[in-house]
């Protein structure tokens, strides 16, 4: 099973003078069981693409295959879209703005009740999801509105995890959080991936791309510009992509250029670099 995007095109405001092309004959695959980052400037087509992966938008032409689901331009062929949304879930940017229930557990259980689960079953599952994101009992009855930004975000993510999707898409999951809050979210993402979930990240943060993803997809002006590993991307000329190569990686490249024995593929964070330098010294 896999995630395949086949020659997909999409425009907003079709057949009007303001038509905007968002995706232009894009094809690629996203490997299952890995963490893949999708990057690209604002307006490059990232958001359009992720919305297609769970059928919120349909392509104008081309099609997407997500495991045994198919998303095509024809509405009547996309009968199982409700099931697809359980299979692929999106945590949108700043999901904490969508919290609304009076207690944390009710908010997390809300989605499950929509899928027809009974009250007590959905609360039970909500508790499990809250445990996954590291929020204990003491949070169950609290109002989501009195929590810190990082805690709110984790409640919102728990609401998605409660549905237990196999593929989880997160749009800018750390935006606006303090370093501690970001670290918790990134560790959670790693843990979810270790437990078998396929993760797709949309991000502007190149350190997340370097340190936390197995693969990276670059969209540029509605087309696919690159697919490969982060280190392959950062060793290329990226001047056309509006990407800032992480300073750590630049520095590692600089050392390599000066005949130091650096294994660039294995540089993900400062620890990796320091460990390699120890060997050299």
């Amino acid at each position, binding site marked *: 099973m896999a995630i395949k995007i086949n020659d997909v095109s999409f425009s907003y405001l079709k057949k009007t003078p303001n038509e905007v092309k968002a995706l232009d004959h894009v094809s690629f695959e996203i490997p299952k069981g890995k963490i893949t980052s999708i990057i690209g*400037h*604002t307006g490059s087509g990232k958001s359009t693409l992720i919305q297609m992966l769970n059928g919120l938008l349909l392509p104008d032409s081309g099609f997407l295959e997500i495991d045994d689901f198919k998303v095509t331009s024809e509405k009547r062929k996309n009968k199982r879209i409700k099931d697809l949304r359980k299979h692929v879930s999106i945590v949108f940017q*700043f999901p904490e703005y969508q919290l609304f229930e009076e207690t944390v557990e009710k908010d997390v259980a809300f989605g499950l009740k929509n899928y027809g689960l009974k009250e007590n079953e959905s609360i039970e599952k909500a508790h499990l999801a809250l445990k996954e994101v590291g929020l204990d009992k003491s949070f169950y009855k609290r109002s989501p509105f009195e929590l*810190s*930004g*990082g805690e709110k975000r984790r409640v919102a993510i728990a609401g998605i995890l409660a549905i237990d999707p196999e593929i989880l898409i997160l749009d800018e999951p750390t*935006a*606006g*959080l*303090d*370093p*501690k*809050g970001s670290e918790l979210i990134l560790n959670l993402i790693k843990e979810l991936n270790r437990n078998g979930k396929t993760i797709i990240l949309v991000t*502007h943060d190149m350190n997340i791309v370097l340190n936390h993803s197995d693969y990276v997809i670059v969209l540029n002006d509605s087309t696919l510009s690159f697919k490969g590993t982060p280190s392959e991307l950062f060793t290329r000329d990226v001047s056309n992509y*509006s990407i*800032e190569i*992480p*300073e*750590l990686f*630049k*520095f590692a490249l*600089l*050392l390599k250029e*000066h*005949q*130091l024995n650096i294994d660039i593929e294995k540089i993900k964070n*400062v620890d990796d670099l*320091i460990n390699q*330098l*120890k060997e*050299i*010294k």
Partner: protein
Amino acid sequence: MKSVEIKNLNYSYNVNTPVIKDLSLTIDKGEYVSIVGHNGSGKSTLCKLMIGLLEKNSGSIIIDGVELNKDTLNDIRHKVAIVFQNPDNQFIGVTVEDDIAFSLENDNVPRNEMIPLVREYAKKVGMLEFLNKEPSYLSGGQKQRVAIADALIRRPDILILDEATSMLDPNGKAEILSLVREMRKENPSLTIISITHDIEEAYLSDRIILLNEGEIVLSCLPNELFKNREIIKKYNLSVPFIVELKMRLKDLGYDIDDSSSLNEIGEKIWQSK
């Protein structure tokens, strides 16, 4: 001259959880200060107290020589402007022009004076060609630039940026930071107080104040803070890459104290090989 003088300030949202604890702080006119600290450390509360959005329990806040109280609140709100985190929550007007004019309307500025003023401030923030645009046509960075124009057009003495770049993409962030630099060049007496988690951004300021649980832990030059490894570890601060690299290489025995760029540091490494 002093721009902000805070003495023994106390505030709590409810009786059991004090948020600001006996805090005293002075900021000079024209100074650019960053306030850092994790979520819940009291940064935003402090700002809200300074513009009278929250009422202190005790202590005093003196802005430009005027003590903040019920009688002076209006004057003080003319002296202090604030730009908030979310670009979408601050746009009131139908167009950029409307939005910038809004604060002037509140001050009863006549229309013939208003029009050139709006153009002038739109130009300052690089949004002149967007005057007739609706917010849905603007990027997050552009909306925040309009919010800064809204703030500056009332000619405040103090500009507070409350995580004003944290919801922006890297381009938007760079736009705002370069605008801050320009504003300071143009008006050296403007005091800027920036609340931020972004350590590269705090690095640009004159002074960093570290808050923790409503108290000031440290107030020093950015470089001094980043050298203080105990503090950085204890308060879970991130440091700019070059600072971290230097610390780690020092542990490995490299003498890189006087190297100030990645190139210079690199040289030390490949020469020592």
